[in-house]
């Protein structure tokens, strides 16, 4: 229960521009992530907080192997997963999933809800029958608060909050161990944000999920996370238990962030 599910060690991610046809041109390098290390224990939620350019999305993409890291290593359940080729990483993809920021953009507009949610099933369990897939999809839809009779509808027929629920259903259907939530509620209306946050917490309990929760919204970060990591310009500023970060911020940047939070009362 308290094992390190994910261990990120000293990773750096550089964006370089080099040209294949004109190799004598100078390479420009931009260091998006600089020597970041952290661990995530099973069952807990680590909040990644930072502003634009902090590198939080880059770290997320590096963990799911969409981006290559330039140095360091990433371990998942003690297996190295950084910079693997597609074949080797396929079996880990079942266990690490992602929820994206823009709910409508993360769904293929030409596929209906049933096809979208069942895609992970079809990819990893190709032997399942159509009926089995259908039943599993409908079950997950009910669990995320969608009516299962909407299964043939297309993404543009749903509201933003419902689209995000579809995205969540898709990422949860394989019961992965780790879900990276990349600003899952930032594009939603305020009244829907709370619904989705509650849903995420519910699912965490139900399926024993571990979350890496990326957000720029500190209020939500505090509510969702057990531990919080603050990033600025690709570097880790502070990492501590949630309450500690907010009540006893150690670094100036953290203090600045907390004091900028608009307060209603």
């Amino acid at each position, binding site marked *: 229960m308290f094992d390190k599910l994910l261990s990120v060690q000293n990773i750096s991610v550089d964006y370089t521009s080099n040209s*294949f*046809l004109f190799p004598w041109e100078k390479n420009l390098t931009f260091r998006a992530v600089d020597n970041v290390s952290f661990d995530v224990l099973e069952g807990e939620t680590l909040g990644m907080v930072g502003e634009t350019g902090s590198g939080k999305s880059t770290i997320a993409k590096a963990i*799911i192997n*969409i981006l290559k890291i330039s140095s360091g290593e990433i371990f998942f359940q003690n297996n190295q997963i950084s910079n693997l080729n*597609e074949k080797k*990483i*396929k079996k880990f*993809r*079942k266990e*690490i*999933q*992602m929820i*994206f*920021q*823009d709910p409508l*953009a*993360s*769904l*293929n*507009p*030409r*596929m*209906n*809800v049933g096809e979208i949610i069942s*895609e*992970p099933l079809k*990819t*990893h369990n190709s032997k399942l029958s159509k*009926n089995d897939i259908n*039943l599993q999809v*409908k079950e997950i839809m009910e669990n995320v608060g969608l009516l*299962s*009779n*909407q*299964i*043939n*509808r*297309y993404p*543009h*027929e749903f509201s933003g909050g419902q689209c995000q629920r579809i*995205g969540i259903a*898709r990422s949860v259907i394989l019961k992965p161990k780790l879900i990276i939530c990349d600003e899952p509620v930032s594009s939603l209306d305020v009244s829907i944000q709370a619904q989705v946050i509650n849903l995420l917490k519910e699912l965490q309990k139900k399926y024993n999920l571990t979350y890496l929760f990326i957000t720029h919204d500190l209020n939500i970060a505090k509510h969702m996370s057990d531990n919080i990591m603050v990033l600025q310009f690709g570097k880790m500023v502070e990492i501590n238990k949630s309450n500690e970060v907010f009540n006893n911020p150690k670094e100036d940047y953290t203090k600045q962030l907390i004091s900028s939070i608009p307060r209603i009362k």
Partner: protein
Amino acid sequence: MIILNKKFNEIEKNISKIQEVKGRSLWHDARVRFFKNKAAVVSLTTLFLVLLFSFLGPIFAKWSNEEIDWSVLGDISTLGYPSIETGHYFGTDELGRDLFSRVIQGTKISLMVGIVGALIAVVVGTIYGATAGYFGGRIDSIMMRIVDILMSIPYMFVLILLLVIFGRSILMLFIGIGLVSWLDMARIVRGQTLSIKKKEYVEAAITIGVSHFTIIRRHIIPNLLGVVAVYATLLVPGMILTESFISFLGLGVQEPNTSWGALISEGAGTMRYGTLWQLLFPLFFFVISLFSFFFIGDGLRDALDPKDR
């Protein structure tokens, strides 16, 4: 007990099937928008009628396309006139052959060249372009440089060369047109793929673990089809024009096969003898078909890319 459970499961499945709400896909919306466009619908109907003409026409023809009507030879400008009594609905050409049947045959051949050429372009070009665009990097560079090189070869010159060396035949025409038609499509598809590749749902598919070619098939190509369809409907007239030009030069289809270009060429040649019908009938079909394709292309573009999306 097991049987009862099975029955209940069946019933449950059936009930849930009944209640499922029908989805409204984007293709459906586009179809609705397309049919609201009057010009496009008229063009579609026109094309359909032309196709019908080429298939059903032979039923009404009194003469075949090869038969020479000896009775009109010698004075075609008065005897070869279009009339219903003689059975030459469109008149005769200068060799006394029935123009009605010749136009039917020309329509068949020209449309076939256009559509088959566009089909080759679509299939080859889409797969090539999507692969290049999706994989990017070196693969993309190499693949697109090949396209660039092939594009810079003067196409008409090569086509004429092929036809002269290997003889004039429909097969050669297809090969020649097919060799070149996919290049533009590949470029366009690659460009579209580059922008689709960056979309979040492609990232989501990679995260799920979908294999590369399945991503291209399931996520990229369906979202390209809009652009491809529009471009394909504009390719068809292009093909027909090319073939017509080649035939006009005398290098296209061999006798007794004929095409619009060949017929127009002959008709233009005999204009000064007053046998205008030899030019006007094939020209008429040629023009309305091309116009129809253009309007359909426009209609498709508007239907698939509305401003309010």
